[in-house]
């Protein structure tokens, strides 16, 4: 695990344009707030969807995330990039959600399966594979999501942030509020569990 000096983190990734946007937004400039939302709404929704596995939950969480961003932007000191800071808020909000969500899910299997069935067939078609491979790919994807869902939340979050969002260990550690070493071991355990579930893929 490469150890980067903590001081090097300060204000890295916060570009001048971004700093100006943050300043305007925390002063209550509505246009700036709109811009900030537009720049990040897609990644916020997608991360929430990957963590919670439900479209409506993901939309709700997105709204909560941005309200929280606006309320706390004054405390953002550039300790990470704005993006990573928002990731952290998404993870926290998703964590709050999934505690009761999981319980509710037990008897109510509305999930990614259904979401995909309702609106997602096109997404797979647009991806381009031949029709006979379409079903294979969809089945594979379903199995991957089921396997991810069975992971403990912290492991699932680590693997999603790493494999889908491409975050570094340092950024994942910040998003989860844990040490870098913890990220390393969580990812190793998550992969081990996933490999066992998806051994034939």
């Amino acid at each position: 695990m490469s150890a980067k000096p903590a001081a090097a983190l300060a204000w890295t990734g916060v570009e001048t344009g971004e700093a100006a946007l943050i300043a305007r937004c925390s002063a209550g400039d509505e246009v700036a707030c709109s811009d900030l939302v537009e720049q990040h709404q897609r990644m916020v929704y997608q991360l929430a969807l990957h963590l919670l596995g439900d479209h409506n939950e993901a939309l709700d969480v997105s709204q909560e995330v941005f309200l929280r961003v606006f309320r706390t932007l004054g405390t953002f000191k550039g300790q990470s990039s704005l993006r990573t800071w928002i990731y952290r808020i998404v993870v926290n909000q998703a964590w709050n959600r999934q505690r009761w969500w999981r319980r509710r899910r037990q008897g109510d299997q509305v999930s990614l399966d259904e979401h995909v069935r309702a609106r997602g067939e096109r997404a797979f078609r647009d991806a381009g594979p031949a029709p006979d491979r379409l079903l294979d790919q969809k089945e594979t994807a379903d199995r991957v999501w089921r396997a991810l869902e069975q992971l403990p939340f912290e492991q699932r979050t680590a693997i999603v942030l790493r494999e889908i969002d491409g975050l570094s260990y340092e950024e994942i550690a910040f998003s989860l509020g844990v040490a870098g070493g913890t990220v390393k071991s969580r990812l190793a355990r998550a992969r081990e569990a996933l490999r066992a579930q998806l051994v034939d893929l």
Partner: protein
Amino acid sequence: MTRLTCARLRRHLSGFCDRELTVQEMCAVETHLERCKGCAREVERLQRLGQVIRRAATGLPLPLDEIARAGQATVARAEAEREQSVRVRMSRAFEDMHLVWAALAATAATGLCAALLVGVGYLAPQVRADSLAGILAALAAPGSNLYPVSIDERMVPPRVVREPAVSALVEESSSTDDDVVFALAAVVTREGLVVRPSVLRASAGDHETVSRLVRAVSEARFSPASFAGAPVAVNMVWVVTHTTVRGKTIS
């Protein structure tokens, strides 16, 4: 870290795939992988797992319209919350003063309705905020007595500690039946003093009354507005309405 056994090495493969090991560890793993087919296959499997997860993610629908609508709704809601919070704090802060003036009005058999409004840039330095001069002025020391700022929701607004002595004015004005409206702008300094008062509007009343009102307001004392615990100078506007009460309570 040479000659790692497979078992010891496997614990590092996940970090190796993410290129998050130290240079030394990366080299040791690479050297081992050149000789060990089993571990090399394990690395391939881990990389394949990453691909499978990413592909599952790209297959998910992305309802951009819905996401955009939710985003707009959030901005609108945040804006409403912000406005609400400013209004609540302002009215709470000036309740005291309002009561004092209401009491005075009662004794004079007239109603004196006093309201304090947020100084929406009324007294800001006479330069455009986005001009170079405006930016330099703001950078110099926003919130200093020279560069007062507008009150916003992140600040604790000023609180009156000595109300303006307006009783004489009330009595004097009560002789007329006309509604009188004064609007005064001023800066409440970091020390809580009222400085640079200027009359924005005086719908009635002679010159003498107006200047006495200005003097009276100037004598008010505040605990200053503060931002993150530090006192800041702010722009304020007083609107003083003097109306004859006809059996009606002014609230």
